[in-house]
């Protein structure tokens, strides 16, 4: 429906009713991607703080990554997390075919592996604290704990989100809202995995974990 008004030179279209609807999923995933950029800055700042405190003086006589962290344990955690990402990403292929079952399986496996990852992380932090190297022992340990804890918290939220989506895909089906949320959840999980890879590289491997 075009409203045309004649001017001296040509017909000009002044109003455009067809353009009213914007693509909600596109705006939504873009907005969520922007959120992930801010989350990226959170981890960047934390890793910067870690880099500043990663020295003998800030360790205050307590051990550092080279004695506290195990590279092989971290590698197992990495595999678990990448498994969670893979399960979710393969599951979301169900969005194309309309396969709720496949997506549900992907969500469930991803949530389970996410839980395993968080549990492994918490167990590691617990063991360190039990050995007298808790977050209050030194500034270095404060930062190590908070960095790992923040990442774990993000994953725990991802697990909760996966469980909510598990309910929603059966309750609502693949509505626009549900699909938007699933795409964002996939972005989120992949992003957290990417952050973990950086943490693993920088804290574990560069830190000389055994």
């Amino acid at each position, binding site marked *: 429906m075009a409203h045309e008004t004649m001017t001296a030179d040509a017909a000009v279209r002044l109003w*455009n009713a067809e353009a009213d609807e914007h693509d909600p999923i596109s705006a939504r995933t*873009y*907005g969520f991607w922007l959120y992930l950029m*801010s989350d990226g800055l959170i981890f960047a700042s*934390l890793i910067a*703080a870690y880099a500043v405190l990663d020295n003998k003086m800030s360790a*205050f006589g307590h051990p550092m990554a080279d004695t506290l962290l195990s590279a092989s344990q971290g590698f197992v955690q990495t595999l678990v997390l990448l498994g969670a990402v893979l399960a979710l990403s393969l599951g979301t292929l169900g969005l194309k075919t309309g396969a709720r079952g496949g997506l549900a399986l992907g969500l469930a496996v991803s949530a389970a592996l996410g839980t395993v990852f968080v549990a492994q992380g918490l167990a590691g932090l617990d063991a360190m604290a039990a050995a007298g190297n808790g977050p209050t022992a030194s500034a270095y340990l*404060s930062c190590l704990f908070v960095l790992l804890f923040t990442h774990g918290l993000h994953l725990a939220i991802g697990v909760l989100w996966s469980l909510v989506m598990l309910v*929603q895909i059966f309750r609502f089906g693949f509505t626009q809202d549900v699909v938007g949320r699933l795409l964002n959840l996939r972005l989120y999980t992949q992003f957290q995995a990417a952050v973990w890879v950086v943490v693993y590289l920088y804290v574990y491997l560069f830190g000389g974990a055994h």
Partner: protein
Amino acid sequence: MQPDLQGPWSPLLGRLSLAAIPYDNPILVGTFLVVSVVALALVGAVFYFGKLGYLWRNWLTTVDHKKIGVMYIILGLVMLLRGFFDGVMMRTQQLLADGPDSAGYMGAAHGYLPPHHFDQIYTAHGTLMLFFAATPLVAGFGNIIIPLQLGARDMAFPYLNAVSFWLTFAAAMLCMVSLFVGEFSNATWVGLMPLSEMSSNPGVGVDYWMWAFQISSLGTTFNSINMIATIVKMRAPGLTWFRLTPYCWSSLATNIIGLTAFPVVTVALTLLGFDRYFGTHFFTAGYGGNFMLYINLFWIWGHPEVYFLMLPAFGLFSEIVPTFSNKTLFGYPTMVAASFSIAGIGWVVWAHHFFTMGMGPNLNGYFSAATMIVGIPTGVKAFNWLFTMYRGKITFTSPMLWAMTGIVLLLIGGLTGMMLSASVVDYTVHDSLFVVAHFHCMVLVIGSALFAATIYWWPKVFGFKLDEKNAQIFFWVFVIASLLVFVPMFELGLAGVTRRLDYIYNAALKPLLWVTEVGIILYFVSLYYFVKMLVVSLLRREPAAADSWGTGRSLEWLTHTPVPFYNFAVTPEIHSREEAAWRRDRGLDTARPTEYVDIHMPSNTGVPFVLGVLSFVWGFALIWRIDWLVEITTLAMVVTVILRAFDKNEGYVIPAAQIARYEAKIATASVVADVADEAPAGALEV
């Protein structure tokens, strides 16, 4: 939570007890009486006029970007007033407490404020002015103007927009409560370390500051996401990137800063929170803590934050100067480039806030040079405004007077900033009143832009213009007051007065202190004229035209005044970066659509308000360490968000016939206010 907490703590009330109420402080009791009388009068008026339902449906649950913008601006103005009173108290204390022989009143050795109270006042002044006055005002204008200039129905995420506002509101209320329950931080608005640590500051003051700051920055981060997504995704057809208004461009730059810088301060405050609540050692003096880490993280956010507030001001000038010069903006592409240069360089100059840290000549040299480079794009902007005015037909309305003053203040603040950017100079004037005068000139640029914008866009939002005579008196009194307050501070700073002094030793400085006090009194006079301007205009309510100033250039001047809740009856097709001027030149500015289609609008929702209330209680419980309440409110917020995800929330549709009726109503009578209020009723039906 904290193992070595000082003072009493009970499982039920945490650290809260009757001793937390400062009933023995006459200043606070007086303030409390005034605030409670005003609050009771407002609540009483709502009930007396039976407006509770109206308030809930039309304001508290609204997702309309214009109403949220108005609420942001009201919040900002109220907090500006409170911040102003803090400033008055500081100046008066310095005037009274000068020289060894100055008298003491109300238990103070000199002046009338004991040091602990004075420290809280300057901390509150900085915190309130930046986070709860300037930031909401900037966000408010962004909310109102940007969707209109894009030809959009609302923001990209209307619900998130309301959440942002209510988080900011909750944080501001935490600051207000700190006046009457407990105390506010005394460790400056930047949170000096290790002064803000538990060991030096065991009270709740720092916690109030920290959580209010934290909650409001969360709101601002969400707002930035929303603004960027709106500008990128919600543009009307034909609105290509280089047809965006200069204000939208500067808002895009500013919100990219907001999105990237605010998370850094979130981290800085979270680490401080871990220190204060769990006994970690990020910024402590012992156990390997590093308090310069905090100062760096803080200013990595803090300096971009300055431009986060400054760039929208520049954008507002770029809208107002062309309108009142009746001429297109000079150098539009360079204006855009300058906005992004300022945003980019603003990110890499943070250490000029602490040249005296001892980072060595190489780093100081780098940060000096980087800081000086900011002057180039800023200068480009100043010259562009001047060239816009050059040979234009200037009308000296109050918004234009504010804009021109803003440019002069930018020159004063900018040139003194260039002096400070030389680290050798900074060593002598670091943390002196010279610095205070410099950055107040800069924030007055923002203030000028915001006053200009208030007067300029007022008719677009409310349908009538503000009284020009009182607006001009307000302008002249305010500007003269500002110069009287801040010009002497340059001199005082060079004479060696450092900032945050509750007592000035040298009695010879008294004349200059008197000059600032006279300026402060003039600010009161200007406040009178500001209120008079509002009252006179509200009583008169003369309907304004769609193009209220007759020379409006951007898209928002094409829709009705005041703007109906759906903004544009039919989405406009854009042909020019100055669509209103483009249509006016072709005689098309009064053309209205003849046919309508259904409009899809977002529904109102009470969830953002509930989240705001919950985050206020959550913050309060954290500050007083009421563990059970922290747990309950955390859980309640998670459950609210999840429940919201199960709410289908498909919005509602206004049928084309209804739009036609609205438009006919608007065309025949000045009843747009009714149409503006009809939205939520429809929203709740669906």
